[in-house]
């Protein structure tokens, strides 16, 4: 057997790391997946390569996050290697060693926002965002990136990090936030004032199965991607939409995941959630790897699969169809959204309350962005957490105009005593400063 696309696999199951002994995010999580991958002989297939994971540096993490009080306090080596595994996957793709890559790493990252006071939704740092920022820094030819998040939970962290970035399209398919953690990801969340329409949320009703998911991909995600023309497509490949997942209520199958991947044809996949470690992950991951490599996945099937039991409800399918139509209309009209929602002021402000469920921390944020027609716009986040830390984070985006850059440095240089620390991310100059 020979892969149609050269495919790299970074497998890092972190067999010696857990959140707690009985937590879903524990040592055993990828054990049966590894068994299946080995027994199927996936690594023996010509042009499928396994690469060693790596370490993300403090600088790599600082490109995506303001870690409070500092990077080393917020992570363990496992997070470092998980993010480093994604970076290695990206490196091998961008160096041309392989056409596609899958970072099968843990722990996950898509609930981690730009400011990190602790862990939420099993995530400490956002492994996709760290990877994407690593790519943008090392490979400036990559201008536009699309994230398609197929985890069952809304990737509120990835959405937060790219909320204002018109060059990173964030699309999320997830179980409706009214029925599942983190309770966000509604269609009316569609991006910040300088990136309106570039966040696309598709909340799906519980029990959505293959027909529903694949309809969204075909009629909404693919047309949107066609138009956005990203240089790179990243799939946040969470696997908890599976019908056997213990903490969600969807009805997607391993074959469906493989088909989704085949249709989406992402450059890099990153494992996110997925906690049906015996009944789903071994089959879903095998399916995704085969689909990535452009190989036949039609024989991938869960031992207990009964399609009649999990078929989409016709009413739900109808709802999904209408939702996709409406979202596609809004996508086409996204350029008009800025005028429609603009107040005509120079700055736009939003307040947020964030709860870190894994660590039990509460945070309140006030974010101010400069409305800018020249660039993605400088912004600052004033963040206070129940841990007692209050910080100010300033982000000068890729391609910042002079006015935004000057404003960013003006904010940073202003003497402020109410903050524990003031952070600066100057993306174009790759400068990350912390003033304490």
């Amino acid at each position, binding site marked *: 057997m020979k892969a149609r696309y050269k495919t790299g696999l970074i497998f890092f*199951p972190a067999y010696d790391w857990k959140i707690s002994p009985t937590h879903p995010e524990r040592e*055993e999580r990828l054990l049966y997946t590894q068994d299946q991958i080995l027994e199927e002989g996936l690594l023996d297939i010509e042009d499928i390569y396994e690469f060693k994971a790596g370490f993300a540096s403090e600088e790599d993490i600082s490109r995506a996050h303001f870690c409070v009080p500092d990077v080393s306090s917020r992570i363990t080596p496992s997070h470092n290697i998980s993010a480093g595994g994604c970076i290695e996957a990206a490196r091998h793709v961008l160096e041309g060693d392989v056409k596609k890559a899958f970072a099968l790493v843990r722990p996950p990252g898509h609930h981690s926002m730009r400011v990190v006071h602790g862990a939420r939704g099993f995530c400490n740092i956002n492994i996709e965002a760290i990877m994407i920022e690593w790519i943008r820094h090392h490979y400036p030819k990559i201008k536009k990136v699309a994230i398609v998040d197929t985890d069952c939970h809304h990737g509120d962290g990835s959405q937060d990090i790219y909320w204002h970035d018109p060059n990173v399209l964030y699309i999320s398919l997830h179980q409706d936030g009214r029925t599942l953690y983190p309770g966000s990801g509604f269609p009316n969340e569609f991006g910040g004032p300088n990136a309106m329409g570039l966040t696309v949320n598709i909340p799906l009703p519980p029990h959505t199965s293959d027909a529903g998911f694949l309809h969204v991909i075909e009629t909404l995600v693919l047309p949107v991607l066609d138009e956005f023309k990203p240089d790179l497509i990243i799939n946040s490949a969470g696997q908890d939409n599976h019908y056997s997942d213990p903490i969600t209520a969807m009805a997607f199958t391993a074959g469906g995941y493989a088909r989704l991947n085949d249709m989406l044809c992402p450059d890099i996949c990153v494992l996110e959630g997925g906690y049906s470690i015996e009944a789903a992950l071994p089959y879903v991951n095998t399916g995704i790897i085969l689909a990535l490599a452009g190989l036949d996945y039609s024989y991938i099937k869960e031992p207990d699969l009964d399609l009649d039991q999990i078929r989409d409800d016709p009413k739900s399918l109808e709802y999904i169809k209408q939702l996709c139509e409406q979202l596609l209309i809004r996508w086409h009209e996204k350029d008009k959204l800025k005028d429609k929602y603009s107040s005509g002021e120079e700055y736009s402000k939003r307040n947020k309350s964030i709860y870190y469920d894994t660590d039990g921390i509460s945070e309140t944020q006030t974010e101010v962005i400069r409305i800018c027609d020249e660039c993605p716009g400088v912004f600052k986040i004033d963040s206070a957490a129940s841990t007692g830390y209050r910080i100010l984070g300033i982000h000068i985006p890729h391609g910042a105009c002079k006015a935004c850059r000057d404003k960013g440095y003006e904010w940073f240089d202003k003497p402020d005593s109410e903050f524990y620390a003031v952070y600066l991310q100057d993306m174009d100059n790759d400068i990350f400063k912390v003033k304490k």
Partner: protein
Amino acid sequence: MILGVDIGGTHTDAICIKTGTIINSAKVTTDKENLVGSIVGAINELDIDLPKIDRIVLSTTLSTNAIIEKKYGLTGMIASAGPGIDPKNYFLTDNFYLVDGAIDHRGREYVPINRDQITTVAGKLKDKGITGVGIVSKFSVRNPLHEESIYNLISNDFSYISLGHQMSGNLNFSRRINTTYFNTAVMPTQDVFMKSVSGALGKLGIMPQILFLKADGGTYMASAANRLPVETIMSGPAASIMGGAALNKDKGASLVLDIGGTTTDIGLLVDGVPVMEPLGVSIGGAKTLVRGLNVLSVGAGGDSRVYTKRDKLFVGPQRDGPPAAMGGKSPTPTDALAILGVLDFGDAKKAEHALSPLAHAMGKDLKDLAKDILTTLAKGIKQASASFIDELNTKPVYTIHEMLHQELIRPDRVIIIGGPARNLKPYIADVFDIPCIVPEYCEVANALGAALARTTAQITIMADTQMRRLVCPEIGIEKEIPSHYSMDDIKTFGIKALKDNASYLGLTDALDVDVVEAQSFNMVRGFSTAGKNMRLKIQSTPGIIPEWR
């Protein structure tokens, strides 16, 4: 007295050892049509007191050649797979039959076998005149039930049957298919060979213990070789690397270079123990589960073709017949050695004649060119060695501990063996920045390696305390265990099982047994611990027999 005989493609080398010293060695030309004759010829050449031989270790290319040249009878395969990659991708011939049956990664049966279907398949195989059948099911190392049930249905119908789970405890369905197929295919060959070797030795009036060298650099008794002949494949490179281990007992990492005519085999010893392939060796492009040494073979040897391209000198990777000094067409490193006057064979005039045009074209003195050729060869070998070590050092690891504390391999020395070793040493020592050693007897290192290698075996154990099951596929153990069974219990059980089954596994003794891998996972279902999933590998350690010095 121990006799080591390495039956190579060109030569058969024999060596005789008594109480830790080499008594004599011999080299005869291999008669490919009569390997047993070559063995007897080499033994006669040794000129020793035959009745004193108590052990003879054979390293043969019999199975290797049979597989590569497809010299075996029609062989049938019965495989059950269940969902996954389409198993038809792995079918090697038309005599493969896919049957019902599926087992999952924990060894649970979810599609049973169909007895009528199997009887029908067996009938078809018999009608084709097939006498050997391999039986394989996916995840059989987690539960051999289907392979064993199929075996029970057809065992009276065929002379040679091998079962996938007995080949290796490692997971890999396609390699299990290849390994089982090849094993079944060469069983008759091994059978005939073994009978004829015993017969020939009987005629010499001796009845020594007969052992075979395996790909892992260990040996096993003839009874086990009859059952698992596939393990003798690729034993040639293993013989040389083990020869290196016998000839240099220094601690640390030793890079072993076996320089031959066509290729150089590169292997590694860590404290005298050879480094293995993670899953198994490949043969003729097919990947197997046969445990074997990790050896990189590069096309750089004494007889490699020397040529220039855009004024740059190249040595190998092709070989174009014998060196010019031996009557060949193309110049080779051997010719370079002849020009430098260090060869005790060959015609230096012919070598000069072959290299002169090159020297002229490059505007070089003939002796300078000869030295350049040998340096180029040495650099090529060094470069290959570096990528070999680099590959070992970038092998993926799966725990944070290993990521943080991985010790990189840095060879402490180079052990050079093989025909041209002595003459090439100065050039190789020049490009490596670590000590290079050419041990005494380096020309017969392969036979020495065979004679001195220990018997080896490895077993795999998986224990699942939630299902209260323990499986050890290599020796066919399946038993119920108590839910409180611990890793220590499994270790004790495994070590005893290996010792109790030593002779079945082909071991002459099981003195040095160690646990090479041990993993234990808490299995959590819902929010409470439901059991432990434990995996263990136990082996009798490869190395050199203690009698040697």
